[in-house]
């Protein structure tokens, strides 16, 4: 070898083609597709997990003697999964060939729609879950008698003056109704909290990417 590496370096880069910068254009496309694919994967896994859980809970509910809870749980969660599966199908319709900004915007619109629908569902979902638990335990067999009836009998021994409506203490109905109202009121917020817990990082990345692209467009 006769040339020094310093000379090779200097002479090599004197030629015009050595330092041609590539265009900065494709990175956002790749990143947006990656983020959305990740979200879709997580969303699908989440739906599968709900189905698996509702099946497992249905079986367990029969074993522990609260089948009413299990059946209501199963039906409610099945409806939830069907609705979200339909929403997910809508996500597949988003055109991957669109520009990154358009793609992310469409995805963001889909997310907003999905959140709005699920927030509405959550106002019913959490109260239904609570009611199913109450009913399940109320009708659970306790030595030949429903647990709820047994509980009322115990209460009547201690508090004989307690006011009953269709055999249920009024105070109990009021407390249950209060919990149902609270759950219905906070259902949307509970859903948002749950959503952020699972998808928070993906949403954060999506927001960052959209801010980047908006800045690039400005």
């Amino acid at each position, binding site marked *: *070898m006769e040339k020094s590496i310093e000379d*090779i370096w200097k002479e*090599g880069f004197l*030629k015009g*083609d050595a*330092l041609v910068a590539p265009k*900065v254009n494709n990175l956002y496309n790749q990143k947006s597709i990656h983020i959305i694919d990740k979200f879709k994967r997580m969303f699908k896994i989440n739906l599968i997990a709900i189905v698996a859980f509702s099946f497992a809970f249905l079986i367990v509910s029969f074993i522990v003697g609260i089948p009413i809870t299990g059946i209501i749980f199963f039906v409610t969660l099945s409806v939830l999964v069907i609705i979200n599966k339909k929403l997910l199908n809508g996500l597949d319709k988003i055109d991957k060939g669109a520009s990154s900004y358009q793609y992310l915007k469409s995805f963001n619109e889909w997310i907003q729609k999905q959140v709005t629908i699920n927030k509405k569902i959550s106002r019913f979902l959490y109260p239904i879950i609570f009611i199913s638990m109450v009913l399940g335990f109320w009708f659970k067999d306790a030595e030949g008698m429903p647990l709820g009836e047994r509980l009322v009998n115990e209460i009547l021994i201690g508090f004989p003056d307690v006011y009953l409506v269709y055999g249920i203490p009024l105070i109990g109905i009021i407390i249950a109704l209060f919990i149902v109202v609270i759950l219905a009121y906070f259902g949307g917020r509970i859903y948002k909290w749950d959503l952020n817990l699972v998808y928070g990082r993906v949403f954060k990345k999506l927001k960052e990417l959209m801010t980047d692209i908006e800045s690039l467009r400005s």
Partner: protein
Amino acid sequence: MSSDFYKTSILPFAGIIIKLCRAYTNSQEDFEDYYQEVCLQIWRSKDNFREESQWSTWVYRISLNVCLTLLKKNKKTVQHFVSDSITVEETEDNYAFSDESLNLLYDAIRKLSEIDRAVIMLYLEEKSQKEIAEIIGTNPNNIGVRVKRIKIRLKKILDGKIN
């Protein structure tokens, strides 16, 4: 990233970024990915620049960090920290400079460990030992010895290949 920022703060240093990214990639596709990621990271980190060093040093540091990070992520690229154990993936035919000697030099550089690659490139870019140490985050006293060792190694690889 605004096009103004790209034109004024990145493009003048594109040469530095290109040279570094070339040393850590084996294909045009990877090179373009690395280059774009470096540009994006420079733009994202611009608010952290405190003018304690030159902008070019800052660009070098970010470029190097991004290349090393991507290299670790990229399973296609074989990683080696130890100079003595060398396995490098074949470079694609269409990923070459028109200068054959430069291609051979780059091939030789790619056979070095990740850190040695950075050291020799900074040396070839005529950075001082202090600057090299500052960029890499090491002791300036060791840089001279390391450069000598790398040069001997490169000469050994290139021996007989370049006239």
